[in-house]
């Protein structure tokens, strides 16, 4: 069992190899081969991750040190991998869900040209490599390498169909907003290294007593700023809905299951910092921002008509829930929700991809309807996903969402009420999406109707596997109340100490909360059914219009941030660059030109003037010699 630790480096290396092969050989490889290589390396990583997981489960955690990445004076930052409970769970999620999405992509992207197809798989593999580096790093610097890498791949993949300018703008927006968060992350790393001399998790967490209160608050806040950028919280969330410009499997992998959960991973990993008494204010900020994001995104999703945009806002909202859990101190619940969310959100995205594929590229749900009878498997798995995200027992979403709501209740009743409201909105918009897509009469064109078909096996099998996981995935976290052992919490305990709430509630209250929220979900679902059974398209007015236009946040950012920066940039360009610097440099040239024209006149060819100049020269020499020395 122990020799798996010798090959943990293969876990990120295999996808890197896949990237190199597919990337460099993209013009030569056939589509089948590119797909097989791309998916095969992820399968290899998954198998090794499974082995690692079982190893870790029997208690074998390990830090694998490879070489000193940075070795300057007293600062040694090694290229180390940390194999422990938290990273092994994330490894399984990334490689497992990643593999399913790779297989799905071979069918979804098969209309692309050979070299674009291979390029796609190269980018996807590079992304998985970076994400694995992120979760496997044993210090913040390696995590940052992976962090930047996933940001880059997100840009590359969102702008995959680069011939469309709107997609390019969406990719740029994602990258720039990520970078703003990265600045916070970098500052936190610098602060940590200044104060403790190390960025290593192990050493830093052990030496937490050396940090003053300001240090802890500063570092945790800055790390959280990094997380807001990557995990799309207020105010850096607007890139995620625009990122739906990328291919649907990309949205499933990057913007649902893995990249956006990097922020939660970072905070869960740093839970020692966040649990410190000094970090009280940061936790409050995190829970408030998480809750606000959950509410805001859920409200916007209520009125969106693009199937992928609804899911995108749903992701932002669910991430808000996870941050709410982190802010209330229940890191395990957040990680649990990451896992279940990966299952059902990837399922929902892939299902929507299947629908889009069948509709020949149409993404507007007002033009769909009644797809139930054409796409049985897609419809059924999508329904499983909707039930999971709504938190219907005994699906996975129920257990994870309930854990979050419970810790919110224990922390602050107001937070709990708003969180339940957000959860009800979640149920409503998901079922609105489901009913508008699959029930009722078909509202599209005749050509689209003829084209409707169930997707091929390579697309439906991942859907089925993910649906199964979405259904049973919650059983690793059944709370004690319902007779379970909460295995996930005990598993993660060495990394994340079990959350002991400051004011625990009695089991009666806990039952009451559970039943109460489930009933609320049913009511919301029923409401969604009744409202959207017979859909009639009509204009949105008042609040509906505001929601449809995303609370005009993009326009607000445009006015407050983008326009001033653009005018500043054009000022710099026109005044300083063109007139100032160019003027100066050209001016030097002009001056030299003028001077040389004047000096040329000395060469008149007139011998007499040469003699005069000679005399003048001698005179000057005399003066210098006699008077100036």
């Amino acid at each position, binding site marked *: 069992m122990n020799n798996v630790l010798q090959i943990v480096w293969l876990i990120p290396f295999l996808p890197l190899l896949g990237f190199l092969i597919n990337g460099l050989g993209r013009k030569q490889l056939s589509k089948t081969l590119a797909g097989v290589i791309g998916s095969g390396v992820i399968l290899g990583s998954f198998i090794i991750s499974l082995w690692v997981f079982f190893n870790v489960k029997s208690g074998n955690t390990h830090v694998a040190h490879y070489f000193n990445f940075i070795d300057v004076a007293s600062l040694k930052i090694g290229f180390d991998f940390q194999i422990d409970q938290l990273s092994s769970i994330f490894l399984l999620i990334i490689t497992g869900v990643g593999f399913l999405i790779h297989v799905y992509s071979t069918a979804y992207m098969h209309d692309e040209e050979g070299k674009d197809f291979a390029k796609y798989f190269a980018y996807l593999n590079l992304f998985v490599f970076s994400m694995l580096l992120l979760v496997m790093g044993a210090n913040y610097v390696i995590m940052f390498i992976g962090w930047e890498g996933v940001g880059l791949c997100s840009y590359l993949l969102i702008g995959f169909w680069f011939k469309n300018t709107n997609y390019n703008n969406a990719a740029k927006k994602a990258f720039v907003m990520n970078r703003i968060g990265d600045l916070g992350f970098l500052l936190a790393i610098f602060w940590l290294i200044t104060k403790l001399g190390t960025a290593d998790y192990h050493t830093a967490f052990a030496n937490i007593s050396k940090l003053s209160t300001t240090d802890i608050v500063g570092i945790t806040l800055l790390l959280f700023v990094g997380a807001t950028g990557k995990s799309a919280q207020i105010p850096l969330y607007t890139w995620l809905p625009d990122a739906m410009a990328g291919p649907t499997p990309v949205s499933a992998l990057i913007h649902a299951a893995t990249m956006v959960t990097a922020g939660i991973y970072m905070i869960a990993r740093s839970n020692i910092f966040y649990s410190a008494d000094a970090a009280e204010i940061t936790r409050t900020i995190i829970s408030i921002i998480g809750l606000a994001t959950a509410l805001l995104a859920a409200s916007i999703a209520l009125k969106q008509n693009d199937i992928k945009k609804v899911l995108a806002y749903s992701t932002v909202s669910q991430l808000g829930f996870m941050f709410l859990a982190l802010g209330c101190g229940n890191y395990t619940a957040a990680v649990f929700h990451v896992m279940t969310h990966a299952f059902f959100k990837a399922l929902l995205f892939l299902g929507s991809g299947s629908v889009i594929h069948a509709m020949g590229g149409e993404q507007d749900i007002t033009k769909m309807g009644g797809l139930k009878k054409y796409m049985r498997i897609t419809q059924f798995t999508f329904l499983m996903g909707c039930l999971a995200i709504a938190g219907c027992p005994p699906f996975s979403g129920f257990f994870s969402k309930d854990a979050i709501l419970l810790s919110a209740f224990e922390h602050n009743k107001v937070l709990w009420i708003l969180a339940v409201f957000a959860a009800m909105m979640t149920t409503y918009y998901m079922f609105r999406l489901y009913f508008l897509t699959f029930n009722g009469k078909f509202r599209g064109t005749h050509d689209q109707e003829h084209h409707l078909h169930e997707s091929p096996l390579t697309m439906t099998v991942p859907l089925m596997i993910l649906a199964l996981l979405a259904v049973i995935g919650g059983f690793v976290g059944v709370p004690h109340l319902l007779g379970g052992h909460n295995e996930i919490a005990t598993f993660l305990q060495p990394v994340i100490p079990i959350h002991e709430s400051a004011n625990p509630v009695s089991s009666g209250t806990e039952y009451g909360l559970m039943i109460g929220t489930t009933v609320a979900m049913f009511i919301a679902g029923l409401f969604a059914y009744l409202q959207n059974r017979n859909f009639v398209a009509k204009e949105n007015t008042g609040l509906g219009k505001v929601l449809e236009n995303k609370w005009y946040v993009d326009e607000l950012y445009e006015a407050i941030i983008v326009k001033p920066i653009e005018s500043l940039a054009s000022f710099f360009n026109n005044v300083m660059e063109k007139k100032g610097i160019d003027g100066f440099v050209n001016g030097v040239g002009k001056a030299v030109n003028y001077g040389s024209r004047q000096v040329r006149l000395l060469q*008149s*060819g*007139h*011998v*007499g003037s040469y*003699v*005069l100049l000679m*005399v003048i020269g001698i005179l000057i020499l005399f003066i210098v010699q006699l008077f100036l020395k």
Partner: protein
Amino acid sequence: MEIKYYIGLAVALFCIGIIGVLTRRNAIIIFMCIEVMLNAVNLLLVAFSKMHAVEAIGKSNPSVVSDAQVFVFFIMVVAAAEVAVGLAIIVMMYRNVHSVDVNFLNRLKN
């Protein structure tokens, strides 16, 4: 007489010589002005030699008495040689362009 009068005369002669070289058009006149410059220098040398001789005899250092005066002879020799060569050039020039006007020599212009 005081040395300053000799210096003044020599300087005046030298300046007259220079201005003559710069402004006159006739090559032979230019040569004459060059001779004037050389003679001004000779005058200065002789004057200084006499000035130092007065002091040197007082300090019983007879070797420096007539150094500069001997040097004057060298200058005169050089002047003579230079005039010979220069007049030869002027004769060649006259044979080619039939004029002794130096402004004619602006062939360097093109």
